[in-house]
């Protein structure tokens, strides 16, 4: 993992995307307020940000960072197959499960560090942009701060490990990234479109809510089923975290199984 420039670049992106997104979100109400002053459609003064809005601005960067973390996970493993480095790796240590686990450990550690630092930067930035001048009202869930600040980076680690598993499953950069984007972006999109097409497939809400991206939304919102009462089953934030762990475990298990049996070269 060391001396690999692209790894560091992707980790830097994971870290910096978060404050960048937070900054954009925090500036959006100011821009709107500015427009309102000109058109008299919006109040000229900023309203105090609610706790929910504040923390959603802090955690907003985790969504684009999730994509980068997943791609990083794919590349950490799959790029070894584009050259001959996998041969070097496996002739140094032929225990493939152990190789994958070691990569997973380093990947998890570095992703967590980058995500945690990025989230703390987002928090500081959101405090400067949203709270200092206008103040913040309490969040609807008093634990939301802890869920987002501590749980958010851990969710990113799960996405990175999911990417690692998919990289091992496909053993190709394009294939692994395709699978990852398919699961995180295309699958919820397709389910969302199908759900909107006809009222007879309301049950699709449940698989939609179980997609990785939807689980991240649920987790970071920190709310439980009360928010969606009367509209079918909705996982609570901690259930979303657990289901995301299952997704990651499934991808890693499949990747390990295929990688252990694959012919190399």
């Amino acid at each position, binding site marked *: 993992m*060391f*001396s*690999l*420039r*692209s790894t560091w670049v992707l980790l830097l992106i994971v870290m910096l995307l978060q404050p960048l997104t937070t900054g954009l979100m925090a500036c959006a109400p100011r821009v709107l307020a500015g427009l309102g002053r000109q058109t008299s459609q919006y109040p000229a003064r900023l309203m105090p940000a609610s706790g929910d809005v504040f923390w959603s601005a802090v955690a907003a960067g985790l969504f684009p960072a999730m994509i980068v973390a997943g791609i990083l996970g794919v590349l950490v493993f799959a790029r070894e197959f584009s*050259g*001959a*480095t996998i*041969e*070097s790796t*496996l*002739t*140094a*240590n*032929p*225990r493939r499960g152990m190789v994958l686990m070691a990569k997973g450990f380093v990947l998890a550690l570095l992703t967590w560090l980058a995500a945690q630092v990025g989230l703390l930067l987002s928090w500081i930035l959101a405090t400067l942009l949203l709270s200092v001048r206008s103040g913040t009202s309490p969040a609807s869930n008093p634990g939301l701060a802890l869920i987002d600040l501590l749980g958010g980076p851990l969710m990113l680690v799960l996405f990175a490990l999911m990417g690692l598993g998919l990289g091992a499953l496909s053993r190709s950069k394009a294939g692994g990234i395709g699978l990852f984007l398919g699961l995180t972006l295309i699958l919820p999109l397709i389910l969302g479109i199908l759900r909107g097409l006809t009222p007879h497939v309301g049950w699709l809400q449940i698989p939609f809510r179980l997609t990785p991206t939807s689980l991240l939304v649920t987790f970071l919102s920190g709310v439980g089923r009360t928010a969606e009462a009367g509209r079918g089953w909705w996982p609570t934030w901690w259930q979303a975290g657990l289901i995301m762990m299952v997704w990651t475990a499934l991808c890693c298990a499949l990747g390990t199984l295929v990688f252990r*049996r694959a*012919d*190399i*070269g």
Partner: protein
Amino acid sequence: MIVIDSLTKRFGSRKALDRVSFTARDGRVTGFVGPKGAGKSTTLRIALGLVRPDSGRALFDGQPFVRLSSPMRTVGAVLNPRNAHPACNARNHLLALAAVNGIDQRRVNQVLEMVGLQSVADKSTGSFSLGMSQRLALAAALLGDPRNMVLEDSFDGLDPEGAERMRGIWHSLASQGKAVLLSSRKINKLAEIADDLVIIAKGQILERTTVARFIGEHSRDSIYAVTPQPDQLKAALATAAGISITRLPPDENCPPDAARFRIQGAPLASTASILAQEGVVLYDFQQEEVSLEQAYKDIIHGRRGARQSDSEARL
């Protein structure tokens, strides 16, 4: 000692290896030679646990590679010289491998010195030539001071100085009692360094021998003749005992009305006398020394086109 025992492998409908067996003994350099697609790489990859065999096994000092407790201390392998990450410098590449295998980091400088890469140790491996990559790959293989070496196409890209250094290292390893298995398509290069020879073609072992014996058996004299009267030539020599006449395929130097022959088992002078007495016209008639490369090709093509060769020999 490296033991390859009845390895068989299919890729789809193609049989890549068919009960391949041989031994690379301690204290000897074993040349593993065969044309492209013969099964050399598959054999080595199976031995190193990269490819799963359908049947058979490969053992290093009695153990399969994947069960070795310290692989780099038992086997040093070079399959593809460009196996380091291009963004990584040579020293860091070796340091990482040493760290993974619990090898003293001081060993890195030793192996860099052995292969002559000290001056470029801090350059990224992406800027390395093929020859430098070969040296780096050998340095990595030597890190654990292994008892067995497996090297594929290790002559490729080497300049004369690099090749000489490599030969010195392989000789030195063998003289220390280690087993060195060198795979290549180039028998002449292998013969310069190897003690034993294993020839493979189409997934089957054709010959297991020593280089000395191979040279002794195959570097025999023969006569090369080109004549526009092939029937007369065959008739003139038909009664001579112990002579074999092989019609060679035409080449660009052969006149269109002539045929090429290899005559074996006959002295040059007496054969020339017989042909002169019989009035056989000859365009070319000369003593031919069969090269190592030619003998190797004959073995491979002989086995491949046995039926064709038989019909040629009956001419």
